């Protein structure tokens, strides 16, 4: 049977196993939307803004490990998708974003709703395609999914001029058994010689640290990471993107590292003699001043992307390969090796770390302390949330102080449960991302922890949540200010709160939630927090917006001292350096 371009597209998406398409229609995409109407396999989720479509597809992908799909029209539809593309690109999330384009003969004429999507998206995609022949659509879709999901994953754009989906032009559907691109062959297996060298270096370490990032989660290698550390018994730290890669409850887990990492994790990195970096990229929010980074450490760096290795910090033993395959090889080599771990040295090292933890570690029992603060502390909101959900929720966040508090205080024991924009730091990500997660796991608790700043950047998606019955729980940590901006202004700009407050003009979030057809709750007193959260989570089939007023003067600590600081240089609390 011959199919139109739109039908070819839908058939190809079906063959890729796509369940949800997050999108927004418009002129250039109308043929495609008609093809969507005629099929039953892929459910289309109509968002209220294209940014929401890309973030929802992204959240779906982060939670499931499958590629997310978004569909937008040309012009403003395409430009609105850019923030979501950049967000996914920075965190290596596999997305396929399909954009309608004006008809081929109009391209380049400044026609209505025309924009050069390929050009405008180029710096924030792994690859992009423009459809020039309708019959190529199945192959392009296949290649797009292949590129998005293999190697270091990332978003791919397919731009389709409207005439290529013309319902009157029909073509045969052909799907290749296998995709092979002569210019794209990502490395899977690590070099055995490098694995040997790494094993030797790691086993002779006295102060090793495992520094594991989002690559462990993207590469589905968390089990291998746990197995590796059953052998090594080394302290482990996860990056913001890596939380959940190693279970937070494990006794070797030190918490997150970096800008707002724990004291012990940052001290361990600085004083390590061997750092085993796994699927992490030595981001500037980790290393602080690169020249002062871990002065005595030899670096073993495992990554699927050779360009991530020795980009910021020189790797002594680089290993290019899929994280999972590399860890399997490393575990095998360590088991085979005759070198014995220096248990005494390791015991001393782990003891040192627990001493650091005792000295300046995070207080995970703030919620039990009556007099910690007159107002509700934001940290306590996260701790209470952790208990209200038994630590089992899928948690998305936006960007700012609340994001750091979740990273610090919600203990993630499983991979993929923590969904946040780490690389780009996109406010507005949390709610649409939670929609993607909730669609994938409708029976589980899905929470969006946000702030009154971030939530207003994609608030329109509350309407989508009603239409598709997505009973997400939104925990709005409301300090009536752009908290992280204000923290920096307190610390670096003499407390001049330039353009960071708006307490006189915030909406009534309870009424706002209600007007969107949801449940709104407001908490201002410490005593009401726990019971309100319990009530919200008992309402299984309703979206509940819990607006929690917190102490506006609270800062996130620890915080690395910058500029010209190393990882051992931290603010521990207000005006106190360690």
């Amino acid at each position: 049977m011959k199919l139109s371009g739109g039908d070819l597209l839908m058939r190809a998406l079906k063959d890729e196993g796509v369940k949800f398409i997050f999108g927004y229609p418009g002129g250039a995409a109308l043929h495609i939307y008609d093809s969507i109407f005629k099929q039953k396999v892929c459910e289309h989720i109509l968002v209220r803004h294209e940014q929401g479509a890309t973030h929802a597809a992204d959240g779906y992908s982060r939670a499931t490990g499958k590629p997310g799909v978004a569909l937008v029209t040309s012009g403003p539809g395409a430009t609105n998708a850019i923030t979501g593309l950049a967000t996914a690109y920075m965190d290596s999330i596999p997305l396929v974003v399909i954009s309608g384009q004006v008809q081929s003969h109009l391209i380049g004429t400044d026609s209505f709703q025309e924009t050069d999507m390929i050009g405008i998206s180029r710096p924030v995609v792994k690859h992009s395609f423009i459809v020039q022949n309708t019959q190529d659509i199945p192959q392009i879709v296949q290649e797009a999914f292949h590129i998005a999901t293999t190697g270091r994953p990332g978003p791919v754009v397919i731009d389709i001029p409207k005439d290529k989906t013309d319902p009157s032009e029909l073509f045969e559907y052909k799907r290749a058994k296998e995709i092979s691109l002569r210019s794209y062959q990502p490395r899977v297996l690590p070099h055995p010689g490098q694995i040997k060298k790494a094993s030797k270096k790691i086993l002779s370490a006295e102060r090793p640290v495992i520094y594991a990032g989002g690559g462990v989660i993207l590469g589905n290698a968390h089990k291998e990471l746990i197995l590796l550390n059953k052998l090594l018994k080394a302290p482990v730290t996860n990056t913001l993107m890596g939380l959940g890669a190693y279970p937070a409850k494990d006794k070797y887990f030190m918490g997150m590292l970096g800008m707002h990492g724990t004291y012990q994790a940052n001290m361990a990195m600085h004083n390590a003699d061997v750092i085993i970096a796994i699927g992490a990229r030595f981001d500037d929010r980790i290393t602080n001043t690169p020249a002062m980074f871990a002065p005595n450490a030899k670096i073993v760096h495992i990554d699927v992307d050779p360009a991530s290795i020795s980009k910021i910090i020189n790797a002594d033993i680089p290993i290019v390969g899929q994280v999972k395959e590399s860890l399997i090889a490393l575990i095998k080599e360590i088991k085979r090796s005759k070198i014995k771990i220096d248990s005494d040295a390791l015991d001393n090292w782990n003891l040192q770390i627990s001493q650091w933890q005792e000295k300046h570690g995070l207080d995970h029992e703030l919620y039990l302390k009556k007099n910690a603060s007159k107002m509700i502390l934001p940290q306590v909101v996260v701790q209470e949330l952790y208990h209200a959900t038994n630590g089992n929720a899928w948690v998305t966040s936006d960007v700012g102080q609340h994001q750091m508090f979740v990273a610090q205080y919600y203990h993630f024991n499983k991979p993929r449960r923590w969904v946040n924009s780490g690389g780009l730091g996109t406010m507005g990500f949390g709610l649409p991302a939670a929609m993607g997660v909730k669609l994938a796991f409708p029976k589980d608790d899905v929470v969006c922890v946000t702030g009154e700043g971030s939530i207003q950047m994609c608030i329109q998606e509350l309407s989508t949540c009603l239409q598709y019955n997505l009973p997400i729980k939104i925990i709005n940590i409301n300090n009536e200010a752009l908290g992280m901006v204000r923290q920096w202004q307190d610390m670096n700009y003499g407390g001049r709160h330039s353009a960071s407050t708006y307490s006189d003009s915030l909406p009534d979030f309870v009424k706002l939630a209600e007007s969107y057809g949801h449940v709104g709750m407001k908490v201002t007193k410490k005593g009401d927090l726990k019971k309100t959260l319990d009530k919200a989570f008992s309402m299984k089939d309703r979206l509940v917006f819990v607006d929690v007023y917190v102490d506006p003067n609270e800062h996130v600590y620890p915080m690395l001292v910058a500029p010209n600081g190393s990882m051992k240089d931290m603010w521990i609390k207000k005006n106190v350096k360690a």
Partner: protein
Amino acid sequence: MKRIVSILIENKPGALARVVGLFHQRGYNIETLNVGPVFDGTYSRMTVTTRGSENDVEQITKQINKIIDVIKVSDLTEGDHHEYEFIMIKFKHSKKIQEILKSLNGKIHEKNKDAMVMSAWGSSSEIEAAIKFIGKVNLLEIARSGSIGLHEGEKVLKI
């Protein structure tokens, strides 16, 4: 230090823009750029000259390699190599310019009563020196091909 990076890339629309865009995106400069189809025409070979430390160029070549359309990348300056650049110049009659170009394999393409067009080729340092020496007096127009080059010996950048 000056570097010559050779890139074998799919001859597809937009492929060149991906490479050029990447230089800008990652904060590196392109001094010269040459591109043309090679082999069966489905490939292009690009030659880019840039400046940077060894680390810079390692990072550049790794990032270029990540571009999906790129098949192979090689830093010619890493080893022995041949490198030439071709120029064409239109100038008012000038013995000086004519002689400089003659010393660089110069060829006359056009000669009329006011001006002439000549081409020449040489290593990029020879070409640079010649351009400096020619100066602005009597010069009407100049076009440069940008460097192209090949590895010396057995090493090749092929499919």
